[in-house]
């Protein structure tokens, strides 16, 4: 049938699709499209601005504000704006609340950030391996995951910190060990769904190894889920660290937000500012992280780009 030349169009002329106006898509280079998607989400932009402000207050501002935060600046329990007081008032030892809250953030954020990193790395790796291989590997890993999931989190963390001392390392370890199962289960479910998709089969058909398929083929496809979850995890870690510190399980020298709330608890009825300002910092940090997570979800999904 060589005379019936049906492949005369093989010079590659695609028929234009009148319903699909792709000209707009191709204007922006691919690498800026994610940023554009993020910028379109107003709440996420607000969250990002908020987080930048918080990071500025906790890490940059203390460089310019001189004076030791443990130093006594006036009488005790002076309300904000009262005579002889500071902008944010003084606490039960006559220290400046504003200065303590400003400098205490770095301890909270450092612990929470490291814990979130541990959670995401451990959770993603275990979930990916379990979901990809299935069978007995999945069984063993999921039983381990369940073991950590049924542990009473706070008690377990208290035991760890009691055993190894209230150092950054032990608190990070405690939070990490409690919180990784959620991400592991999420990533596992995502891998179980994706591993049977055609593109994974195609990757194997071009000769990709297991490790390559797990980390380079499937993992980037689970990233929208992981990124969103990790911002939530980060917020959760901040709250958990604050909770531990509130109970006194943190380095007292750090004067972290949670610890400071715990310290001011006794004077709550007469001194509202000692609790409120560190509390607001925790609230805004967690809020900004979840708003950013929402925006990142849109940005990480290439299918939503250009819409």
């Amino acid at each position, binding site marked *: 049938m060589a005379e019936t030349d049906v492949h005369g169009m093989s*010079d590659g002329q695609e028929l234009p699709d009148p319903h699909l106006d792709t000209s707009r898509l191709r204007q922006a280079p691919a690498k800026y499209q994610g940023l554009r998607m993020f910028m379109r989400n107003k709440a996420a932009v607000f969250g990002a601005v908020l987080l930048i402000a918080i990071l500025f207050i906790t890490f940059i501002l203390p460089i310019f504000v001189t004076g030791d935060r443990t130093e006594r600046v006036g009488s005790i329990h002076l309300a904000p704006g009262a005579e002889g007081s500071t902008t944010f008032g003084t606490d039960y030892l006559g220290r400046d609340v504003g200065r303590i809250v400003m400098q205490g953030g770095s301890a909270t954020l450092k612990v929470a950030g490291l814990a979130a990193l541990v959670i995401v790395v451990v959770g993603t790796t275990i979930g990916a391996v379990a979901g990809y291989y299935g069978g007995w590997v999945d069984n063993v890993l999921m039983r381990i995951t369940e073991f950590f999931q049924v542990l009473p989190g706070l008690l377990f963390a208290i035991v760890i910190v009691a055993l190894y001392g209230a150092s950054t390392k032990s608190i990070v370890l405690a939070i990490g060990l409690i919180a990784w199962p959620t991400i592991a289960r999420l990533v596992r479910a995502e891998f179980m769904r994706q591993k049977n998709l055609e593109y994974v089969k195609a990757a194997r*058909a*071009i*000769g990709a190894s297991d490790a390559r398929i797990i980390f*380079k083929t499937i993992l*980037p496809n689970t*990233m929208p889920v992981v990124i969103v979850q990790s911002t939530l995890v980060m917020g959760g870690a901040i709250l958990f660290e604050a909770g531990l510190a509130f109970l006194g399980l943190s380095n007292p020298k750090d004067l972290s937000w949670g610890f400071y709330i715990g310290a001011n608890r006794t004077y709550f009825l007469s001194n509202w500012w000692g609790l409120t300002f560190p509390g607001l910092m925790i609230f805004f940090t967690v809020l900004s992280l979840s708003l950013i997570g929402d925006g990142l979800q849109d940005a990480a999904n290439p299918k939503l*780009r250009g819409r």
Partner: protein
Amino acid sequence: MRAETPLRSETPLLSVQGLTVTFDGFTAVSELSFDLYEGQTLAIVGESGSGKSVTALSIMRLVTLGTRAKIAEGQIFFRQPDGSTIDLVQADEAELRKIRGNQISMIFQEPLTSLNPVYTAGNQVVEAIRLHQDVTKAEAYQRAFEVFERVRIPEPKKRLKEYPHQMSGGMRQRVMIAMALSCDPTVLIADEPTTALDVTIQAQILGLMRALQDETGAAVIMITHDMGVVAEVADDIVVMRNSKLVETGNVFDIFEKPTAPYTKALLASIPRLGSMTGKSQPERFDLVDMDAPV
């Protein structure tokens, strides 16, 4: 049916002998044997569930992946470019990884889902090249550009940077073909490559595959249920039904003198121009006793 058939070399490039694949006791492919010769196109035809795709995946040894399938019996001999022959059923994973995509590659049915959605088209072809060849990223990119040109993708430079969702189905299938051809394989397995595409794009893709086969000299295994496609591209034909071989032979012989009743029925199922003349309604298809002895 092709006008000129190149002379057959003596030993087949790929020889499947007595292949039996089972899924938990159910036999998906039973005692299947066929040969594929250099530069030729072999069409495996049959209805859904006849074992065509399982056969293709068995050659790639991808059939056991994520399923309970097992290659119970048989050998698949493949002559490698260096002249040595390997039994793909016995080969280990490391050997298979070197063969997949490099010497035997595969095109799948669904171009919409067989590209990774998070990488650009160019990136995926570059990865495929760098898996098998020790080249720098820039060299691989240049090679990807050339392959894109070879599969007649218009504006290849721009297309390299596009994500799969920005492309049409036909364009994605061209990218798949580009990826499959990027390492100059000697065997190309196409599992219903045109089923998901509309008719005009089907013709383009088939034409392209034929042109590429002439350029590269690769042997093609075309899996299809469309006798029209078979007539268009095949040299040899393997007819399968219920996991068994029904009939095999040269495409001219089978189309002119089919011996098995099933092959006859399959050929009769193609609508012919003028077959409705003088009839007001379509008629019921004649039932054929498929299992009658030949």
